[in-house]
């Protein structure tokens, strides 16, 4: 082997080893940066107007980029169970300023801004602001009225405004019929479990976004518990009326024919009758903890 060949081989080896080293180093650096990132959220540029100017004529593209950041941000926070979603609004603010027609941003954003922690940021007023901006730019999107109604109903607990939102949305010929009926129901009753269940179920069935769907599902699970307990209590009252005393165990209701079988919750744990003969979640059911967290 002559010298040139040896030099060639050595060069090849050096480059390979070098690249491997770079690879390993990068992994270490990434780990370091990960630790940093968790402690401190960063959004260097905050002004939507400034970013809009800097994007020259490419605002829709930059909006799409910020949108991916929104999804990533929420996904990461959610995965690690962090409650602090303080950057959600600024990111959404920028996204929708850059592209006022990005519907997914409004829909996703309003849900996760308004929902209480740990599901969302717990800032329903921001959710409202976001949707109002969305409606100004896209008045024909009746779904935004639906989202607005949901925010007022669930998170702001402002039933007159909720009713008004559903009413407004129902005026659009493309809107489903139930919106008008819902407006009336909320105006009359305010909050009710049936209403809540219905509203979340519509979201669950119509959304294409997996995160939104999952969120709706988690609400539905707990609402189902309420509905179930309500129903079981009604049957227990019926039992009391018939038999003059409250049932002590669920089995008695089944035996009395009021229930076809032992009722179980969404996770498969049977409901129990607790103190005073009131229906309750099974102590071992994970739904119990979820319920307690929600009520906090």
């Amino acid at each position, binding site marked *: 082997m002559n010298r040139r060949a040896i030099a060639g081989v050595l060069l090849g080896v050096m480059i390979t080893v070098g690249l491997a080293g770079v690879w390993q180093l990068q992994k270490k650096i990434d780990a370091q940066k990960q630790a940093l990132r968790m402690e401190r959220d960063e959004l260097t540029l905050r002004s939507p107007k400034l970013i809009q100017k800097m994007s*020259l*004529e*490419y605002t*829709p*593209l930059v909006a*799409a980029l910020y949108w991916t950041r929104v*999804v990533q941000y929420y996904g990461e926070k959610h995965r690690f169970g962090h409650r602090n979603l303080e950057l959600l609004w600024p990111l959404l603010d920028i996204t929708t300023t850059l592209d006022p027609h990005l519907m*997914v941003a409004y829909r996703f954003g309003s849900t996760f801004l308004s929902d209480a922690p740990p599901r969302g940021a717990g800032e329903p007023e921001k959710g409202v602001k976001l949707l109002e901006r969305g409606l100004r730019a896209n008045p024909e999107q009746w779904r935004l009225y639906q989202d607005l109604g949901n925010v007022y109903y669930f998170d702001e607990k402002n039933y007159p405004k909720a009713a008004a939102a559903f009413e407004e949305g129902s005026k659009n010929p493309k809107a489903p019929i139930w919106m008008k009926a819902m407006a009336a129901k909320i105006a009359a009753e305010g909050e009710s479990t049936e209403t809540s269940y219905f509203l979340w179920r519509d979201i669950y069935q119509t959304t294409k*976004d*997996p995160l939104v769907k999952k969120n709706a599902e988690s609400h539905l699970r707990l609402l189902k518990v309420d509905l179930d307990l309500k129903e079981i209590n009604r049957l227990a009252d019926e039992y009391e009326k018939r038999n003059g005393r409250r049932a002590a165990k669920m089995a008695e209701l089944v035996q009395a024919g009021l229930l076809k079988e032992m009722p179980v919750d969404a996770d498969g744990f049977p409901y129990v009758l607790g103190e005073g003969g009131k229906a309750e979640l099974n102590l071992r059911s994970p739904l119990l903890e979820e319920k307690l967290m929600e009520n906090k």
Partner: protein
Amino acid sequence: MMNVWAVATNAFREAVRDRVLYNLVFFALLMMGAAILVGQISIGVEDTVIISLGLSAISIIGLFIAVFIGVGLVSKEMDKRTLYALLAKPVERWQFLLGKFCGLVMTLAVNTAAMALGLYLALWTVKHPLEKSDAYVLVAVYLILLKLALIVALAMLFSCFTTSFLAILFTAGIYVAGLFAEDLRTIQAVDLSPTTMKMLRGISYLLPNFENFSVMGAVAHGRGVPGGLVGQATLYALVYATIVLAAAAMVFSRRNLK
């Protein structure tokens, strides 16, 4: 006119042999990557993202070509002295400029058409079948092409009287300034005198308003572009480019070659 055509076809040939069109490969890869990755972001925005990304890429790549090669159209010939033999032929200097302009615009037209095709392919993979509203993308591409033609004219003008480096800076600068022309028109600042405001407004009208050619926002969401806008933008580009090329011809006609 035959002279103009001869120069134009040669300029086109030069671009092709200079492997300018190879940028299409890069573009194709970009689009493919985007089509694959975009589903990961979230459902419901795939077409918006692909269209935004595609149009942005067409615009930016086209911009690079228009500025760098546009400046080189004259500079390169002067630096390399290939111009000497040519101008000793019975050809007017303005015919040379116009021919170069047409040649590069032809190149850009081919380039953007190919990229538009790539965009549609990527769009098709994430969303088939394509809808009628997706045809509006072609309108956006056409307007981008108008913008690029105007930039080529500006690049040529600057390169006629300054070095290629400065010409590139000036052209890029006027592109950015032109994007803010609309803002300049509606500027509201407390500490500006009425005369200054009037002057700024005047400047805003004289600058090339590149926002006229930007419809990405609408098209990305499947909204159409009014035909009137397209017609007027075409006229605007035509008139403005003619002015610029005429000025370039004037400057170049009196220029002493080194």
